């Protein structure tokens, strides 16, 4: 039963990714060509509203469903990993026109060829896991 709520939030997320058109390869092209505010608007509103939300959750020492105080784990200060890994992901994002969330949503649209991209992402993850100790972080 605990998992049902995550299933429902996921359904909502898939609808949002579709109706926002964030799953569109064409919208991502438009973003990387700086020819529309659309994607910047979506991410910008999410970041600003999210920042306000996180500020108040911290300030009010808000609790989650089971009564624990909500905390936020800082991202690791691995700047080399951020810039190198981030750049590689950016290459893949512009090639496929999809980041990980939209990849799953697109499968739900019936674009089964996207499963090939996901399978390839899993291989990329495996190779990263194998090479991790040799890469700068």
């Amino acid at each position, binding site marked *: 039963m605990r998992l049902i709520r*995550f299933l*429902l939030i*996921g359904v909502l*997320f*898939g*609808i*949002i990714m*579709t*109706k*926002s058109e964030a799953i*569109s*390869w*064409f919208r991502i092209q438009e973003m*990387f*060509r700086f020819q529309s505010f659309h994607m910047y*608007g*979506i*991410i910008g*509103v*999410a*970041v600003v*509203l999210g*920042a306000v939300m*996180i500020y108040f*959750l911290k300030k009010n020492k808000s609790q*989650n*469903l089971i009564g624990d105080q*909500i905390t936020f784990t800082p*991202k*690791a200060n691995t700047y080399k990993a*951020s*810039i190198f*890994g*981030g750049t*590689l*992901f*950016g*290459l*893949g*994002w*512009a*090639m496929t026109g999809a*980041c*990980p969330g939209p990849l*799953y949503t*697109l*499968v739900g*649209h019936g*674009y089964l*060829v*996207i499963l*090939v991209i*996901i399978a*390839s992402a*899993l291989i*990329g993850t*495996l*190779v990263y*896991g194998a090479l*991790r100790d040799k890469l700068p972080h």
Partner: protein
Amino acid sequence: MSFIEFISQPWHWSISGAMIVLVMYLLIYFGQKFGVSSSFEAICSIGGAGRKIKYFNVDWRRQDWLLTFLVGSIIGGGIASTLLASPEPVTISEATVNDLLAIGVIVPQVEKTAGVGFIPLELFNFESLLTIKGIILMVGGGFLIGFGTRWAGGCTSGHAISGLANLQLPSLVAVIGFFIGGLIVTHFLLPIILSL
């Protein structure tokens, strides 16, 4: 106009951004966080990668909520593409249409048979897996997404939204990386790849 017709139109960016924050809040309230690319790790762990590679030797059951969330998002995609389908294909700016036509991409708002504008159908299909550009875009692109997000420790959701909203400097650096990569492909590599 019925409610279903109303929400079936493409959403304004401000509504979409606010709805993403709602998802982020719900995940936090239920004790989790908003970050999709961790799912790649969890799936590798389920597949038994932990027996060979220490990095994957973790209890994937801690990520069962994320995998369930993503199954939900697939269902959500199915609902959105049928019950909530927009009457028109995705409409992008005139400038982007012209740029894409110039490099030989068929744009749905110009060519109605080219689909609804989520993926370029002539590039992303099983037959094009037998072409060099298809292999680079799908197999190569997918590999870079997996390798890159795990190296960077997050993707658009974990770094660009959750990380920036929590004022994390490593996330800002990662987002700069996302754009370096995205701009290189869009402005330099894509025209070359599409000409192969």
